[in-house]
């Protein structure tokens, strides 16, 4: 009997502990292999750079004046960001809703049963994808647009002009926070259709509707996520935002933090 009662070593296993770095690598494996990621990235690039070049290359060439600052000229060339944000929002929403919709979430959470590392990993890989890609896009767009504008007899815009660098970099920072907000919406709503509808409503429909309201009842308009974040890159939809660029961006980040916190709470508490 002693052979049986003796503590026997457990059967061989090869799995190591779950660490945040490992979960990030796992999420990156998924994100890079999905077709939707590749398509959305490609479409974002085309929208930002293509639309910017189209605007710079048509109509009257941009001339810097007292009311038309160099920064404004750059933000007009970044009009594509307004459309790219929808595509980038899709990537964010799908990162969770895609897993809930297909059932993969059960496999994912079964191997990371503490759950929260999955959310943090998705934040990291999405930001790690969107920030560099849109930053490159914004700079390419800037150089292409300034070259086109000056070749057509417009003003020569430079990165050292006041507010220009902030606008170019700000558009990329804006889109990076947008993808995080999309992620949180996907995690909270779990359904792709619901997530995309709410995202499009918040970032596209509501700002336009509110913009059409009478002046006296749209005092909250600057605090809408897209308008507050638009203050940083001088969004063309957002003509006169009383918020300073970084205050506006801080408001946008505030929305992201609150939504991610709610997503974390829900992920932790609810059945998968």
């Amino acid at each position, binding site marked *: 009997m002693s052979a049986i009662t003796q503590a026997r070593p457990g059967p061989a296993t090869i799995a190591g502990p779950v660490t945040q770095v490992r979960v990030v690598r796992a999420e990156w494996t998924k994100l890079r*292999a999905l077709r939707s990621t590749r398509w959305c990235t490609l479409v974002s690039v085309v929208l930002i750079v293509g639309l910017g070049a189209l605007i710079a290359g048509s109509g009257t060439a941009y001339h810097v004046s007292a009311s038309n600052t160099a920064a404004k000229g750059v933000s007009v060339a970044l009009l594509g960001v307004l459309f790219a944000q929808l595509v980038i929002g899709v990537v964010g929403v799908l990162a969770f809703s895609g897993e809930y919709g297909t059932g993969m979430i059960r496999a994912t959470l*079964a191997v990371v049963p503490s759950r929260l590392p999955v959310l943090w990993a998705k934040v990291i890989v999405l930001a790690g994808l969107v920030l560099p890609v849109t930053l490159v896009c914004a700079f390419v767009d800037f150089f292409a647009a300034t070259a086109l504008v000056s070749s057509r007899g417009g003003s020569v815009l430079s990165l050292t002009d006041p507010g220009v660098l902030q606008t170019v970099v700000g558009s990329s920072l804006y889109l990076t926070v947008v993808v995080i907000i999309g992620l949180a919406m996907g995690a909270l709503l779990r359904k792709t259709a619901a997530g995309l509808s709410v995202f499009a409503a918040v970032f596209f429909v509501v700002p336009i509707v509110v913009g059409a309201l009478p002046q006296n009842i749209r005092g909250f308009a600057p605090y809408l996520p897209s308008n507050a974040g638009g203050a940083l890159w001088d969004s063309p939809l957002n003509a006169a935002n009383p918020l300073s660029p970084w205050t506006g961006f801080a408001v946008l980040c505030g929305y992201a933090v609150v939504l991610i916190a709610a997503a974390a709470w829900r992920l932790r508490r609810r059945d998968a």
Partner: protein
Amino acid sequence: MIEIDGLTKRYGDKTAVDGLSFVVEPGVVTGFLGPNGAGKSTTMRMIAGLDRPTSGTVRVNGKHYPGAAAPMAELGILLDARSVHPGLSARNNLLALARTAGIGRRRVDEVIELAGLGEVAGTRAGGFSLGMGQRLGVAAALLGRPQTVVLDEPVNGLDPDGVLWIRLLLKSLAAEGRTVFVSSHLMSEMAQTATRLVVLGRGRLISESSVEDFTGHATTAGVLVRTPETGRLGQVLAAPGVTVIKDGTDLLRVTGATAEEIGTAAWRAHLPVYELTPTHASLEEAFMQVTKDSTEYHAGATR
């Protein structure tokens, strides 16, 4: 080892699992039987920490699973064939899970070969048949060489080849000292693979025993007696608690008496007996008998 104690799960006012307590030991295959809707899958989801119990506890290898440092070393689980991402290849589905535990590509390729998915490893899982999805799910459960393996209806949708593969796999996992807990509503399948049985009906534990005990205790077990003297032997055997049913010209079905008792009684009465066969209820019959009051959906019973 899986220890379940007082486990209860309610969804709204519906109780899916009701005060369940049992233990699944390592080294043998334990079958988890019950009609559809009995609460098998809910129990398995709670084992994996995907659903929170309303009350009660689950311990996997003596630990609270969601708190495990290396979850893939503790538990490998197949919940259903559709817990994979259809947009990812079989290999990437597995790789994404493997990465969380620092498991490399070599092990991923190993389980792909083991599951017979070598030729389709690079194609998107969305195009997989139910059987292929099932193989992928089993491969995922085995990735970390876990101490405890939980499989929900693994033979669902598998071809005969796949069914045989699962049987051998379950037995070899148990032989390595792992805990193997496998659900099915196919009793015949459990009879082939399981050593122990946990039977569930309407969320409640109906029985926890070895397969032999489960079938042996079912009341339909009896003895088949072939004799030309059916009438006289029937009279000799008549006693309280013994039923004798005449079945054809030379056949008796006796319940309530053992083969030894019948043989001795026939010899004393000088009656010839040509055949004396103890019959065990099949697992199927035993199961039907044990769960007949607890089936959630009786086929056409109330219509």
